């Protein structure tokens, strides 16, 4: 997708849309009837627009981040892979009978580092979306990823995982093909890899489906991405028994990038272009690449044993509980 397409505004951006309409109207007027004062007004309005956008984006609610993370124009895994390495080599299939389109994998050169990369893929148009199952891999997709983990391990290549998925798919086939086992196996094998593993949450980090390619030495999150144990809709319907409580669920689960950085679950928040990654694919891709290369360079200084140990200790420490005195 090119950088000049029209960006679809989100609900919370309504004040911006109104202002933008005003500017458009004045610009049309100016075209018909050149006028110095009008020109000055328009310049001022443009400034106001940027200021308003900045202040809107500085005060986002968790549910606004969710809306940006789910924006239909948000860059997806293939958009990043293409920008990072136009000659990347795609690897298909789980070698057992399927090539899940919701899980993309291949070989990329990032800067001057060769990596194995996998990522969940959402579709852009309806046909794409259906083929990618709206970014929800089947067990075959997790097994395709597992195969690529093993490849990275065998050849000592760093592994980069891009995560943007609502989660695993609650379908009959997925259960019959044992998606619980597929996810569990990925968790265990990611923990055992002797190469650097870097996970980047680029959109939605949905539950076990995200974790299945997310057990890593470092986790980076795009500024407006989210990561949670269950979808806010699922949380609202189970705990509040109400579809109206999605915003409350978003807030309660502390699922935004900044909150997760503060709680030590992730290592870095990658800033997005103003208005979200969908406003400038190239810039977003460049910023993520810089962050990935920076972290890989640090991780590549560690030995295989140190990498495994570092990853192991990172997860070993996660948890919040009290050890009561034994009486």
């Amino acid at each position, binding site marked *: 997708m090119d950088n000049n397409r029209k960006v679809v505004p989100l609900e919370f951006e309504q004040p911006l849309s109104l202002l933008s309409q005003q500017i458009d109207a004045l610009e049309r007027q100016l075209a018909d009837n050149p006028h110095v004062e009008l020109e000055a007004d328009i310049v001022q309005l443009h400034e106001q627009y940027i200021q308003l956008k900045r202040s809107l984006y500085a005060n986002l609610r968790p549910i606004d981040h969710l809306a940006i993370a789910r924006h239909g124009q948000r860059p997806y895994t293939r958009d990043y892979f293409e920008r990072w390495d136009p000659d990347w080599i795609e690897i298909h299939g*789980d*070698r*057992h009978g399927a090539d899940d389109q919701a899980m993309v994998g291949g070989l990329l050169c990032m800067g001057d580092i060769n990596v194995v990369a996998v990522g969940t893929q959402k579709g852009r148009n309806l046909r794409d979306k259906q083929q990618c199952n709206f970014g929800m891999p089947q067990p075959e997709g997790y*097994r395709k990823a*597992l*195969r690529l983990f*093993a490849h990275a*391990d065998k050849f000592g290549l760093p592994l980069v995982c891009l995560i943007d998925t609502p989660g*695993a798919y*609650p*379908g*009959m086939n997925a*259960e*019959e093909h*044992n*998606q*619980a*086992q597929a*996810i*569990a*196996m990925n*968790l*265990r*094998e990611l*923990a*055992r890899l*002797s190469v650097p593993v870097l996970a980047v949450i680029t959109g939605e980090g949905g*539950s*076990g489906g995200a*974790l*299945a390619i*997310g*057990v890593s030495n470092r986790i980076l999150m795009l500024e407006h991405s989210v*990561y*949670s*144990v*269950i979808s806010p809709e699922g*949380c609202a319907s*189970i*705990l*509040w028994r109400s579809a109206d409580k999605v915003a409350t669920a978003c807030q*309660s*689960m*502390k*699922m935004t990038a900044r909150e*997760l950085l503060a*709680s030590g*679950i992730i290592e870095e928040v990658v800033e997005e272009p103003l208005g979200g990654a969908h406003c400038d694919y190239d810039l977003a891709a460049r910023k993520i690449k810089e962050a990935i290369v920076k972290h890989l360079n640090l991780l590549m200084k560690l030995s295989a044993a140190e990498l495994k140990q570092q990853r*192991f200790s990172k*997860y*070993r420490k*996660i*948890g*919040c*509980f*009290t*050890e*009561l*005195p*034994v009486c």
Partner: protein
Amino acid sequence: MDLKEWFANRRKGREAAEVKQPLTTEEYCALWTQCFQCRELLYTSDLRANLQVCPKCQYHFRIGARQRIDQLADQDSWSELAGNLASDDPLGFFDTDSYPNRLAEAAHKSGLSEAVLTGTCLVKQEKIALAVMDFSYFGGSMGSVVGEKVTRLAEHAASERLPLVVVASSGGARMQEGILSLMQMAKTSAALAALHDEGLLYISVLTEPTFGGVTASFAMLGDFIIAEPGARIGFAGRRVIEQTIHQKLPNEFQTAEHLLKQGHVDMVVERAKLKDTVYRLVVFHPAPHKGARRPDSSKRLPVLG
């Protein structure tokens, strides 16, 4: 005692019996249990003596962690570990009630301090590390404490060269702890990776019901996966799937017997034979001495499947 006196006493006894209050609902329920499957009324004490399995239709009633330990462990051999861990409220979570209140309620309801008991015991004189989850505490959900206890037990098994047995029963992750509960899946799986690399045995027993984050982590990582008859096991819940695919699922979907046919579990073992099965698997796989495992097993990734 003369005959007259005897008759008088008998009449008195009968009158006393006649004025006896009928059983209250509670007393009645304590005395009798109706089988969920065949609807037979069973004497609660008989049912208990039969390991909570209906003698008529073999329906396996859900049992608590303590009862399970009594059934599996040799008498007086159970020794609890990490029983002093208590949940915090990291997010200050409040849905329709606060998380601390919900924890207190779960403790009151189950008589337990968390959704899993961990420790060591003997099974026919063989020492094992054992974790048993309890669905009656917060739906057996996995939060930080469950993850930590299972992880510590796996570490204990590794350092003491013990086989590990985990009896799962869970509705999934504990949402009230947010991302921390999701991360317990990674933590427990990593601990099991270490155990795996030590060449030690891990037996996972899946009981009614085992779902969500527990299934998608330690419960599915056993060298052996045993399911109890009739247990419902899966990742996504039945209702969620039906709502997603807009069709009704067959009755046997996600049952232990169906999973056996699908190749997801190794065996379905009735409760009366569980202890013996665990014992036989344990003695079949003696623990290797530390460092004596087969070379390169830590480097080898498993055949996918």
